[in-house]
């Protein structure tokens, strides 16, 4: 329904367009500079366009290692989050127990906390417990916020799932396992997929927590950060950035479409 006064004025339109441009033009510049022939500085417009940086990036071992490490970390963090987040959501959505609200808050807290706080906290905890930094300390750091995303999605879906549906399944002769397989999981399916994709994307481009929890390992975002101070072959970083944009953007887009229709994608703001 559109009433007469609801039409946006020119000023508002310009402001909205300006805001959108401000958000997305820099992304476009990243893509443009992946093709520039000038390798030492970002001059506009690019003197000429070339595809050679893609070949250079392709040939560099350190990039492949960083990508592979990031993928591994993201996959394992997401898998951990899927299991723990779903279980936590099931407990909080289905049962009433003492301290339930507190538990719920504590699970969500890592996503509200600035990454730097999570990072410092984990780093001090690791050194207090004398845990050496490794691949697994990164995974653990990422899992703290990945769990939240999965939990938020799962808990929202569980709250919308009528408890009588589970009773109906049991009533019709299904045991607990059959009820989980045929009723609960299919209903949770898209929520878990969306939560998992978001968790993957969050982990894949995480810098702050990783800085504090990684030892010698270089994840892709950390590699890019270190690459910024190098004087030569700058467009290689842009090539990798384009790759990261694609890898993070696609799952988020997919998650958005999967959970469309009334359900919010919790925690997508981090």
């Amino acid at each position, binding site marked *: 329904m559109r009433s007469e006064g609801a039409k946006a004025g020119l000023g508002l339109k310009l402001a909205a367009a300006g805001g959108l441009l401000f958000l997305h033009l820099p992304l476009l510049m990243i893509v443009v500079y992946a093709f520039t022939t000038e390798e030492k500085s970002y001059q506009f417009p690019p003197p000429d366009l070339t595809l050679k940086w893609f070949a250079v990036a392709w040939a560099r071992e350190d990039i492949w290692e960083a990508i592979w490490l990031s993928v591994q970390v993201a996959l394992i963090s997401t898998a951990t989050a899927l299991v723990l987040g779903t279980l936590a959501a099931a407990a909080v959505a289905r049962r009433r127990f003492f301290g339930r609200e507190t538990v719920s808050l504590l699970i969500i807290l890592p996503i509200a906390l600035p990454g730097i706080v999570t990072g410092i906290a984990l780093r001090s905890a690791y050194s207090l417990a004398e845990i050496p930094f490794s691949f697994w300390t990164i995974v653990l750091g990422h899992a703290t916020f990945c769990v939240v995303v999965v939990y938020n999605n799962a808990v929202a879906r569980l709250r919308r799932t*009528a408890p*009588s*549906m589970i*009773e*109906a*399944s*049991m*009533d*019709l*002769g*299904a*045991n607990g396992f*059959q009820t989980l397989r*045929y*009723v609960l999981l*299919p*209903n949770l399916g898209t929520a878990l997929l969306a939560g998992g994709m978001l968790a993957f994307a969050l982990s894949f481009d995480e810098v702050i927590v990783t800085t504090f929890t990684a030892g010698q390992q270089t994840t892709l975002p950390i590699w890019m950060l270190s690459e910024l101070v190098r004087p030569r072959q700058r467009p290689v970083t842009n090539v990798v950035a384009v790759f990261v944009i694609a890898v993070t953007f696609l799952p988020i887009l997919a998650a958005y479409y999967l959970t469309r229709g009334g359900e919010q994608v919790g925690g997508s703001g981090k």
Partner: protein
Amino acid sequence: MVAAVHLARASRRFGATLALDAVELEIAEGEFFGLLGPSGSGKTTCLRLIAGFDHPSQGHVEIFGQRCEDLPPYRRPVSTVFQDYALFPHMSVLDNVAYGLMVRGTGKAERHAAARDALALVKLAGYDARRPSELSGGQRQRVALARSLVTRPKVLLLDEPLGALDLKLREEMQVELKSLQKSLGITFVFVTHDQGEALSMSDRIAVFDHGRVMQVGSPEAIYERPAVPFVADFVGGSNVIDGAALALPGLPPGLYSLRPEKIRLGAGDDGAQVTAEGEIVAVLYQGGVHRVTLRLASTSLTVLVPAAEARGLSVGARQAVGWRVADMHRMEGAG
């Protein structure tokens, strides 16, 4: 004959509240049995104890003579039609109905054939491929019914089965449920807070109040001969009169129920043996009749007056009424 369902002094306590208080109930095989009561009276708790979703704190439940303490819902020969239908939104209508057979390991062809039969039974043939979200409320309920019947339960439990339907549909479904139950011959136990629904559908009714069964009997018995004031008021909207207040010679003391349609306006005509006079406090138009409330010295009376006779009644006026002693029913169960 062993009872289809037997609640043996079953109690259910939720924290400090006693939702069900030592309920003793026997439901015979093939009966259409109504559990009637206001919300919070324990009737749904009762149904959940039979289904196995909940367990009695004291006492026990027997289904066809078998004690059910250790029987989870999926091992009981009962099936529930839920108030919100509880259809599985991610499955087609056919898969919903076939679900009970699927989890028992029945082959695809066989279970789909059985599901189609069940859908035909509830007049939904041809709706196989639809999703529950594409159906109307009435159709969803039929699917829920078919889904429960497909596993051939010995007892079908219905929780407020008609609560979410509009009046017209409700009346249709009352007739249909009744004839379905007759043709299938299985025991139906249904929960309702609607006395009209309970009266028109049940073979027998148990009236619940505050977790206790106040009276069990046929619809006629419950309506005509309530045992306690609560039943008189809840089921029939009957007047409850203290016999002592009438000062009639030869009338045994005690509480009496008197149906509002048995009271006539005016005193002394058509054989009225008891008369009273009071102030009219309310006149409610109800289609064919008016519901008139009179305030007497010690009590108030509700009178149903045919529309033709109700002209000239106004709030605040004094009005004489009369009724026959034979229409008064002494409530044996009351104090």
